[in-house]
């Protein structure tokens, strides 16, 4: 009883700290933008991979999964690394400016910790959102033995991709407080455009 209430107290303290770090650095807004942006990238990249495989006459689910996972890992690592480097540079510059103005070392203060937490949160969101979103699009291929026909897996994956884009659009609509369907339609069009351009390109495998 005492231990569980202690654990609850510690958890509540951590949550309060994170909220305070967010107030100081505003990382939740950046992370939200990164989530939408990078998940969008992940879905569209995977739609491209699927179209490439389909038009290149790849008819083995194992090969599509291998290529898909390799691509997902690469965009995940790219998001994580890029965001970590960019966010670290930006935060260090801000902290250095504040230290210069206040003539104080802020590294070990709440502001320094908030800055480090912001880098970690934004990097993780930047890395995980394209990784997860692209793997979601690939999901039907994991069930390829159950589905049977590989062409159905391709079709289902593209539908999942378009639905994921619609969902992301709705998320953006929710953030902006505007029409969920309107935003959903705008993002889904991006997927349809990517599919159409790939399908219409006159390149023979």
């Amino acid at each position, binding site marked *: 009883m005492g231990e569980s209430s202690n654990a609850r107290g510690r958890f509540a303290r951590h949550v309060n700290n994170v909220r*305070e770090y967010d*107030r100081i650095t505003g990382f939740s807004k950046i992370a939200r933008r990164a989530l939408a942006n990078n998940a969008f990238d992940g879905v569209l990249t995977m739609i491209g991979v699927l179209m490439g495989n389909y038009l290149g006459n790849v008819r083995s689910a194992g090969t599509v999964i291998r290529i898909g996972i390799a691509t997902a890992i690469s965009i995940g690592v790219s998001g994580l690394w890029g965001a970590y480097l960019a966010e670290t540079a930006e935060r260090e510059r801000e902290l250095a400016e*504040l230290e210069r*103005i*206040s*003539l*104080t070392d802020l590294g070990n*203060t*709440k*502001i320094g910790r908030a800055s480090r937490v912001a880098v970690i949160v934004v990097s993780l969101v930047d890395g995980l959102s394209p990784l997860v979103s692209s793997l979601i699009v690939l999901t039907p291929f994991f069930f390829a033995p159950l589905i049977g026909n590989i062409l159905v897996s391709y079709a289902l994956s593209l539908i999942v991709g378009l639905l994921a884009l619609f969902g992301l659009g709705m998320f953006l609509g929710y953030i902006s407080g505007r029409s969920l369907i309107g935003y959903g339609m705008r993002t889904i069009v991006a997927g349809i455009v990517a599919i159409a351009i790939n399908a219409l390109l006159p390149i023979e495998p």
Partner: protein
Amino acid sequence: MGNLRRLVLDVLKPLEPSIVELVQLLADQEGVDGVNISIYEIDRRVENAKVTIEGHDLRYDEIARVIEENGGAIHSIDEVAAGRVLIEDVITPQD
């Protein structure tokens, strides 16, 4: 050593954490009865604050730690009072 009853500090602090948070953190300290923070100058990233703390037994080190932990720098101690009775600054003919 006599108990510290009043502290008036000149503090330069970043805009975040805000004075709303800082005043509550200071008020939570042991021996503190009340805190007032007023801003007399504001810049793009920092602000100058006059922090007035009264209590029955103030711990200067702890108060300074809370201010510094929140990114503040104590520029000067402008007024202090200690002892059983709180003595106000007396205006003399020379003033």
